[in-house]
C-alpha cells in the first residue's frame, strides 16, 4: 500500500484557548522553517514506498502564501515519488480563504481542502476564542467552491459548555446546506495544558455530562447518515466512499506514513517516531544535518495488537477477522470470544461476514470496547 506524507505547519495567527496542537505565532520564522523542512525531506529520500497522499496540517497551513506552498510541494516532488492521483489535502482557516487565496491554493495543486469552521454559531465561536465569525466561514466555503475545489471538508466542534443540542443541530443543518464532501465533528476535548483546560480544572467550566454527549453523538450520526453521509470513523463523515480522507485512514490501519515538521509523527514497520515539539530545536537540528527526532518507540506485538484493535473499533468498517489474524497473529474470536459475545449482546458490536464492527452505540464508547 502507498505511504502517506504529513507536513506540520507550526504557525497560527493567534493561539485558540482549547487547542493543544503545536504551533507558534512567530510568523517571521516561516522562511527559515521552509528551508529546514526542505532539508528534512532529504533525510528520508528513498526510504518510503511511493506516497499517494500529502496532508498539510498544523497549525494553520493557510497562513503560508501560495508561493510558499508551491515551494514545499515542488521540493516534495523532487525528493519523493508520488502516485499520479495523489490526494493533496490542506487545512485552512476561514479568514484566510479569500477568493484569491482559494484560487491560488487550487492552482498550487491542492485538491482537498478542510476548513476550520468549528461552528456556525457566533457564541460558540467566541467561547472557543476563534478569530472568525460564522459569516466569514460561509464566505470561505463559497470561495473554495468558486475556486474549483471539488473536495471540501468542514471541521466542526460540539459539546461546548452550555451548548444545547438544538443549537448544534442548526450548525449541522447549515453545514449540510453547502453539501460538503466531508465533515469532521469533534467532541470538544480539553487538555489540561490549554487555557480552557486549566479553567476546567479550576472548576470554572463544566463540560456536558456523558449522557448528553452521547445524545450529541447519536443525533449527529443520525442526522448526517440521514443526509446520505457515511459515518466512517468516530468523528468523520463522508458523502460517499470516494470522499473519505485517504490520508487519515492510513493512521488507522498501520500504513506507513512520514511526518515532517516539528511535532510530526511517523510510522514504518513497527517503529513510530516523532519530531521535537519546538520550532527552534527543529530548525537547529535540521540545519546541523541531524534528524530532528524527539522520541521513538518500537511497538511490541501486544502494542501493535492493541492499536489495531482500538483503531479498528473506531471505524465503521471495523475489523476483518481473517486479515487481522493473518496480520497480527491473533484470532480474536478464539482469544476474546466471551468478551466479544457480551459486547454483541449489549448491542455494541456486530460480528457478521467475518467482520467485527462497532454499532453506533459501540462507536460512542469504542475506547472501552477495545479494552477487552
Amino acid at each position: 500500500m502507498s505511504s502517506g506524507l504529513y507536513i506540520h505547519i507550526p504557525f497560527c495567527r493567534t493561539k485558540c484557548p482549547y487547542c493543544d496542537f503545536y504551533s507558534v505565532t512567530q510568523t517571521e520564522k516561516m522562511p527559515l522553517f521552509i528551508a529546514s523542512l526542505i532539508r528534512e525531506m532529504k533525510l528520508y529520500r528513498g526510504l518510503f514506498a511511493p506516497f499517494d497522499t500529502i496532508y498539510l496540517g498544523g497549525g494553520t497551513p493557510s497562513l503560508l502564501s501560495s508561493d510558499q506552498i508551491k515551494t514545499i510541494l515542488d521540493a516534495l516532488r523532487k525528493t519523493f515519488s508520488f502516485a499520479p492521483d495523489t490526494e493533496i489535502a490542506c487545512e485552512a482557516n476561514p479568514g484566510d480563504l479569500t477568493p484569491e487565496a482559494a484560487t491560488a491554493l487550487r492552482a498550487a495543486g491542492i485538491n482537498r481542502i478542510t476548513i476550520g469552521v468549528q461552528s456556525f454559531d457566533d457564541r460558540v465561536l467566541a467561547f472557543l476564542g476563534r478569530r472568525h465569525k460564522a459569516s466569514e466561514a460561509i464566505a470561505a466555503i463559497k470561495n473554495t467552491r468558486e475556486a474549483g475545489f471539488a473536495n471540501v471538508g468542514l471541521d466542526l466542534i460540539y459539546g461546548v459548555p452550555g451548548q444545547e443540542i438544538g443549537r448544534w443541530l442548526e450548525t449541522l443543518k447549515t453545514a449540510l446546506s453547502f453539501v460538503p464532501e466531508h465533515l469532521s465533528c469533534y467532541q470538544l476535548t480539553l487538555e489540561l495544558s490549554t487555557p480552557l483546560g486549566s479553567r476546567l480544572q479550576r472548576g470554572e467550566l463544566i463540560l456536558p455530562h456523558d449522557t448528553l454527549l452521547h445524545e450529541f453523538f447519536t443525533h449527529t450520526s443520525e442526522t448526517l447518515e440521514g443526509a446520505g453521509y457515511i459515518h466512517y470513523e468516530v468523528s468523520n463523515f463522508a458523502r460517499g466512499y470516494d470522499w473519505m480522507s485517504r490520508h487519515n485512514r492510513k493512521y488507522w490501519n498501520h500504513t506507513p506514513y512520514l511526518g515532517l515538521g516539528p511535532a510530526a509523527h511517523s510510522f514504518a514497520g513497527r517503529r513510530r517516531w516523532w519530531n521535537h515539539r519546538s520550532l527552534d530545536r527543529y530548525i537547529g537540528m535540521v540545519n546541523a544535518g541531524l534528524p530532528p527526532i524527539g522520541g521513538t518507540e518500537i511497538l511490541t506485538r501486544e502494542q501493535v495488537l492493541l492499536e489495531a484493535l482500538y483503531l479498528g473499533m473506531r471505524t465503521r468498517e471495523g475489523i476483518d477477522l481473517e486479515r487481522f489474524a493473518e496480520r497480527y497473529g491473533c484470532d480474536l474470536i478464539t482469544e476474546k470470544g466471551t468478551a466479544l459475545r457480551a459486547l454483541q449482546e449489549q448491542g455494541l458490536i456486530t460480528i457478521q461476514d467475518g467482520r467485527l464492527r462497532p454499532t453506533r452505540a459501540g462507536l460512542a464508547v469504542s475506547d472501552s470496547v477495545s479494552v477487552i
Partner: protein
Amino acid sequence: MKSIRNFSIIAHIDHGKSTLADRMIQRSGVVDARNFKDQFLDNMDIERERGITIKSQAITLPYRSRNGEEYTLNLIDTPGHVDFSYEVSRSLASCEGVLLLIDAVQGVQAQTVANLYMAMEHELEIIPVINKIDLPAADVERVMEQIDSELGLDPYTALACSAKEGTGVEEIMEAIVQRIPEPKGDPKAPLATTIFDAQYDPFRGTIIHCRIVDGTVRSGDVVRLMHGETIHRVEEVGHFLLPRQKSDSLSAGDVGYIIAGIKTVSDVQIGDTITADRRPCSKPLPGFRESKPVVFASIYPISSDDYEDLAVGLEKYKLNDAAFVYQKDSSVALGQGFRCGFLGLLHLEIVQERLEREYDLSIILSVPSVRYRFTLTDGTILFVDNPAHYPDSMSIARSEEPYIRASMMFPERYMGAVMKLCKEKRGENSNLSYPSPGRIELTIEMPLAEVIYDFYDRLKSVTQGYGSFDYDIIDYRESSLALLDILVNGERVDALSQIVFRGSARERGLRACERLKEEIPRQMFKIAIQGAIGGEIISRTTISPFRKDVTAKCYGGDITRKRKLLEKQKKGKKRMKMVGSVAIPQSAFVAVLKSENT
C-alpha cells in the same frame, strides 16, 4: 545463669513498646548508629509502613549494671493489636518478667488489662512503666491512680520514661536486673525446652525460637519434639544477637534458637517441648493456647492463569505464618481458589497485602465470614465458615453463631453512644464497672460476626478515640440465620454471599447493594445488583452505564498517547475480576460488610 534476665515488653497498641526497645538496643550498643532505624525490631515492610508490630521479636542485649556486673538481657517486643494477642502469650512463656507500658496520655486501655492478666497467669514479675511523659498532655498522676485502682498494682513500683527521648530508660534497665528474677532451672537436668516461635529461613529451614527451661543443648545432639514425636539432629544453636550468633550450647535460662534441619515452619508446633532423645524429660512443659482462626475468606487469583502461582505463594507464605491456615476451594463465579482462616480482619488484610507484595500476586478475597454451627434434622453437626456450604434450609434443625465477650474501656461521657453501638451489634448481658472515677469498663456479649468488620473503628469514632476494646470467644449461641446472596446482572456471585442474622437481613441486603454501587465502576452497559434470600429479592440497585467514552481525535501523535491510556486502563482492569461481563474491583468484596457510618 545468674546474669540472665528474660522479659517481654507488653502494652496496649501504640503505647510505645517498639520505641522503648529501640532505646534499649541503642544503649546496649549492639547496633551501630549507622545501621539503626526507628522501630528497629519491626523489620517487615508492612510493619514499618503501618507503624505497628505484627510479630514478636526477640533480641539479646548485653548490659553492665550500675554496680558493674555484666548481664544478658533477652528482650521480646510484642504486638499490641488484638488479632495478635496469641503472639504475646507465647512470648510470655519464655520470660520471668514484663515491662507493662502505659501511655501517659491515654492511660490504661483494654489491652493493658488483657495483657496484664496474661502476665499474671504466667506468674511473672510486672514492672509498670508510664511512657510518653514528654507529651504536654501527659498525666502521670492520673495514670498512677489507674495503676492502683484499675490494675490493682502498687503505683509506687511504677517507673516513668519517655521512650522517644530516652529519659528514664537507664532506671528501667536497672529495675530489670534488680526486680526480675533470674531464670530458675538446672543445666544438668534432662533437656526441657519450650518452642515459642519459629521462623523460616530460605537457607537453613526452620529457625526454632526457644527458651531452655532445664538442661543443655549442643549442636550435634539428637532431640525429640515431644508433641510432634519427631527426632532431629541439632545443626546449630545460638543467641539472638545481630545477626544471629552461633554458640556452643544453650542451657537452662537461655533464650535462643535451634536449627535442626526442619524444612517448614508447619512441621513444628509452637508450644511444643524439645527434649533430648537419649535422656528425655519426664513430661512435656505446659503448652499454650493454640491460635485459632476466627475469620474466614476465600482467596482467588484475579486471572485464573495465576492459580498455580497463587498456590506456590500461599505455600511460601505459610512457612512463616503458622497462624494462617488454608485449603483448596472453588467458586462458580471466581473459579479455583483457597479457603483461608485468619486471626482477625487485620490479619486478613496483612496476609492479602503480603501476598500481593512479596509474591506479586493479584488476588480477590471473598466476603469474610465467621464459623457457624448447624445441627441438621438428622442430628449431624456441621461447621460452616463458607457461605457456599450453607446447608439446605429445610434440613436445619438449629443454627448457632460464635459469641464473644467484649471488654471496652472509655470515659463515662461516651456511655450512651457506646451502648447504642453495642445494641445495634446485638450486644447482651452487659456488665458495667467504674474502675476509677469518670471511667467505665463495659463487658458485653456479642456475636463475633458483628464485630469482625468495623466494630473497632466505630467504637473509636463514637468515643473520639478514647475507647479501647478487647475480646475473647466464649461459646456458640442459637441464632436465626439466613443466606444472603448477591446477584449481578441476574447472575449469583457466590463470593459475595454472606451468612447473616435474619433479623437484619433486609438491612444488610440494602447495605451490600449500596456499597457495591459505590465500588463497581460504571461500565458500558447497565448493571443490576440485587440482594436475595432464598430466591426472594430483598434489595436492588442499578449502576447506569456510561454512554460516551471515545477520544474525538486520533491522528498521528494521538495514536501513541491513546494507546498508552488504554494500556493503563487494561492494567487497571486486570486488577478487577470479571464476573460474566461485569468487572468487579477487589475492594468490592470486603466493602459489602461496611456500614455507612465509617
